[in-house]
């Protein structure tokens, strides 16, 4: 088979591996442990602080941070938020087809330092269909971010609009709370 015909056969027969979930794939009360995790480097921390003009020397001057009692410079808290939210996107919002509506009750519970590794957990708290427009709904999750010691560094609620007419959600992703049976 020539390269060109093989390529054309691939284009014609490839099956889309969808990503993301739709509104009806969620259940109130479920706990979702998200993929990947992320080690925050010093370069991440300083680049984020500087691109967003977050001008508090805690976030980019190690000696200043030490004078304030920290072992290292402090990772800009908005980077912590964005990494935790980022880790939740594939399951929680990539397939919903609607924008994120708001974030509430956000608490920065402990400082994060370069070298720390963060993971994210979501709890689906509320789901409702929009009264004003058919085919739309709103989902609210309680998100938590943990460091490598299992200590919670951030928590918040966020809501997202979902559009389920012509839903683009992908295969149901298995969501298993820690300690529960995986085939439940």
């Amino acid at each position, binding site marked *: 088979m020539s390269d060109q015909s093989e390529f054309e056969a691939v284009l014609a027969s490839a099956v889309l591996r969808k*990503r993301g979930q739709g509104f009806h794939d969620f259940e109130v009360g479920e706990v979702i442990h998200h993929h*990947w995790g*992320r080690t925050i480097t010093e370069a*991440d921390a300083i*680049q*984020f*602080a500087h*691109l*967003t*003009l*977050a*001008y*508090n*020397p*805690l976030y980019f*001057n190690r*000696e*200043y941070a030490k*004078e*304030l009692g920290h072992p290292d410079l402090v990772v800009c*808290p*908005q*980077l912590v*938020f*964005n*990494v935790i*939210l*980022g*880790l939740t*996107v*594939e399951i929680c*919002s*990539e397939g919903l087809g609607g*924008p*994120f*509506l*708001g*974030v*509430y*009750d*956000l*608490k*920065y519970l402990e*400082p994060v330092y370069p070298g720390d590794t963060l993971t994210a957990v979501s709890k689906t708290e509320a789901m409702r269909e929009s009264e004003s427009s058919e085919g739309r709904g709103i989902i609210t999750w309680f998100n938590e971010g943990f460091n490598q010691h299992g200590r919670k560094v951030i928590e*918040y609620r966020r809501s997202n609009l979902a559009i389920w007419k012509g839903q683009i959600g992908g295969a149901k992703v298995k969501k298993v709370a820690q300690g529960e049976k995986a085939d439940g």
Partner: protein
Amino acid sequence: MGKLASLTSSDNYFEDFEVGQVIRHARGKTMTQLENVNITNMVMNTAQGHFNEDQMSKTPLGKILCYGGVNFSLVLGLASQDTVENALAELGLDNITLKTMVFHGDTLYAYSKVLEKRDSDQDDAGIVVFRHFGVNQNKELVAQVDRTALIKKKSHWLDR
């Protein structure tokens, strides 16, 4: 290191803020791929509407939509030097709402209002709650967010 207090401004300690005070921040910043695509990808937000120009060209928006987390982080940043440069810690955020879509090339500016001041459980710092407003070049409200910060007191930190 030299004198600690010489590294930050001397007019944004806890004592300097008054409830009701409104600040217009000096700098704006134009949102480009450097902010939106770079930060969206570095935090692993996998929603390709924030980084796939081809896909977005086939939607009613016609172009990449900036990620809301970047929008309000930039608003918080634009307000940072005047409000939390002397913070010991940012304690939390609340009531984050995204009002207007942002595209590459839009320029954001920030305003802040002091909502509340109170003592903390430590003598050398107090808590201030700010409401930050992000506006675009057309003076449309883009994002709004309340930030609570633990801010140094002059009485304890200005001589350090």
